[in-house]
């Protein structure tokens, strides 16, 4: 089965998304925004996984996507909880203010 769109396009797109995610982590200072950027990275991976599954014509890739989504969900749960906790203490979720420890 010939895919409608060549796999390469998907891969490039996912790479762009991934790099956007990385840059997002890099430049954002709001913890939630960073978190969202990480999600973007994961989803970029998901995209390429699906594309590759298409390419290889097996279900492995799509299977992995489900796991990744689950993991992302678990991370979100824990991550948001942590953000809430730190917000209670610090009244801020600016990651640039996380500098209590220096060494």
């Amino acid at each position, binding site marked *: 089965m010939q895919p409608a769109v060549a796999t390469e396009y998907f891969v490039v797109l996912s790479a762009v998304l991934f790099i956007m995610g990385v*840059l997002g982590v*890099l*430049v954002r*200072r709001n913890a939630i925004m960073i978190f969202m950027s990480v999600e973007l990275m994961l989803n970029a991976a998901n995209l390429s996984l699906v594309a590759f599954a298409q390419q290889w014509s097996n279900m492995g890739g799509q299977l992995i996507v489900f796991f990744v989504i689950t993991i992302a969900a678990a991370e979100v749960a824990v991550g948001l909880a942590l953000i809430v906790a730190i917000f209670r203490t610090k009244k801020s979720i*600016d990651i*640039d203010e996380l*500098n209590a420890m220096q060494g």
Partner: protein
Amino acid sequence: MEVIASFVPLVVILPFAGALLNLFLGRYLSEKLIGALATTAAALAFAVAAVMTVGITAHGYEAVVVNPPILDSWIYIPSAAIDIPWQMRVDTLSLTMMLVVTGVGTLIHLYAIGYMHGDPRFARFFVYLNLFLGFMLILVTGNNFLMMFVGWEGVGLCSFLLIGFWFDKKHGEGWKNSNAARKAFIVNRVGDFGLLLAIFLIFWTYGTLDYYKPNEVLHIGGEKAAADVLVREGGDGIAHGQKGVFAQTEAWLAEGGHIVSFGVFELPFETVVTLITLFMLIGVTGKSAQIPLFVWLPDAMAGPTPVSALIHAATMVTAGVYLITRNSVLYHAAPLSAALVTVVGAATALMAGFIALGQWDIKKVLAYSTVSQLGFMVAAVGIGGYAAGMFHLITHAFFKALLFLGSGSVIHAMEHGHHHAHAHHESEHGEESHGHADHAHEEAFDPQDMRNMGGLARRMPITFVTYLIGTLALAGIFPLAGFWSKDEILGKAFNAAFIDGKLEGFAMLGLLLAAAGFTAFYMWRQIKLVFLGVPRTEAAAAATESSPSMTIPLLVLAALSIFGGALNIPLGVNSVLVIGVLFITAGFWLLWALPSVRLFFIGRAEPVTSLPSLKPAFRLIALGSAAAFMLSGAAIILVPSLGASYPLETLVLWLEHSVPYTKGLTLNPFLAILALGIGIGGILLAQRVYSPAPLAEGNQDVLEIRPDTRPAFQLANAKLYWDETYGRLIEQPYNRAAAWLAHKLDWEFWHDRFHHTVFRDFYKRAADFIATPVDRGAIDQGFLRIGRAVAQAAARLRTVQTGYVRTYVFTMLFGVVLVMLILLLPLLRQ
């Protein structure tokens, strides 16, 4: 003979036994008993030596090698083919030395009992003396170079111990003594260094250190054929059947063209022998106080006087002469070294004689005189006059021991006189202190300074008479012992110069004749300063004659100084011994059995308050020593009557049996008269110069006053600046370099600077660098900056605050890039 010679370990063991006994029991024994023990040990050793002398004479002078019981091999390493046994050699040379050492030693032991009376470390003194005898006897009896070296170093040790014996004297004297002791040891070590190197060379040249192998017959002057060499049984890896050092030398010389390989290089045999003998010469200059290593001997006078007499005049310092004599084969094979030995000896003789002219200390004069006389001996053996050198060694042992003991008697008397006078003045100082270490409360007074003396002849007649005999003997006045031996040496020089045409012979002759003149001059100056004239201090005026235990040895030695020359005049060694022994025994009994005779000697002096009574222990010494002497005398007389016979012998003939290349007697009437003239001339000149008063105003020497002799005197008085030169050239640079090395280089630089700055600080800095600028800085801050830039680029309006997470992210990104780059690099390269 084997049986008699196998007693030789006893000669060594006896003094050691005496030393050990006194070491452990000394604190429980009385002074007399300690002295008796030590003296008996020495006397018994003498007796054994005497018996062996008889034995060896009776058996045709055949040398015997003895393996002592228990300690057979000393350094025995089969895999390295090293077998150095504790092996002893009895031959005429070693016996001569044994007799001198034990004979003179016994007398000095006896003397020391009186001299050291009251010293808090009386027992230890005798321990050291006995120890010294033991080591000296090892030196002379060993059959290999290493045993000789043991003795060599051992006597050095004892010398060190005895020079520093009064290490705790007050007023800084103790430090002076200690430093003198140290100086002696270290300078001797320099000599030992040469000797050790010689030994190494000998071993790798010959594969053995033995003089002669057992059963190897000496072959003299290449005339007798080398004997068959005994091959020992046993497969222990030692190469057997090799020859001893001397026989091998002869063999190689005869063969010619032998090359010695030392592993990394090769040398012709003759060169090797020259090297060996030159290194040996270093040892000789150390031990026998020759230029350039003589500087320790004058300082060594810090020791008690018996020590000076025994070690630093009669025995130890002659070890170098013995060494060269023992190695006559080698020196014969190395003319260059022999010439050097000659020149060194002759130069030393003159140089020391000159310095002796300007000394004030009674013992220093004798010390330089000893150096000078040792120069005579060394020059003699250097020119090939081995017997002459040995002859002078023996006679010098007699008269120089006599002179030292005499000076000891004087010093002793001066100290007591000083104390006596002092007690008169300050009668409140009632406390009777005795000995040498406890004069702390008295003002500084130098009992050895001749300027403090004068007129002692009247106060100390025995001392004076014996001292006079010694002086005349030393000056070489006919017919005293010194005349014969000195003449013999000069004769050798004369022959070498005019018959063999050796250049060093001329040099030697000239130097020695001049030295002989100096000798007579400085000795007579001493007589004038010490004994003649009027007392110059209260101490001198109050001096009294010393006790019999001190004067008897003086008498005996005086007798020997008179008759000692007979050893080498063809009267025969036996007759000399008989005469000597009879004289000695007679002396004993005269002095003790006939108090009236003693009064005859002493009576003209100040009224003697109390004559020391004969304490039982003292009697024991007298009996013991006398018995030993009697025994040996009897043996000499009895042996022939038992059927054995020995021919009339001179020392030369006697030594010929063990010293190859011993040259015969050289009586040269012309030279004898010349030397005698020089000696008498020296005395007369001194008499003229130092009359009427030996000292000018301000206690200055007459020569010091006269402008024409003033520089020379000052030069002599300053000892030619040897010490200063050494101090400036060696000692100070060494010390400075040591301090620099230790404190600057090793500690400040290597230990502190290098290890702290370079290692530790670098380490720390590296750690800090990696921790702070790199880990938290370049990585952290650097990425922070990049992050800031990126953030600014991304969100221009926002100001970025410090934040770690971001920089961590950046670092990780950097890592990602890094990892990818490294991984993809090969691919990219393709």
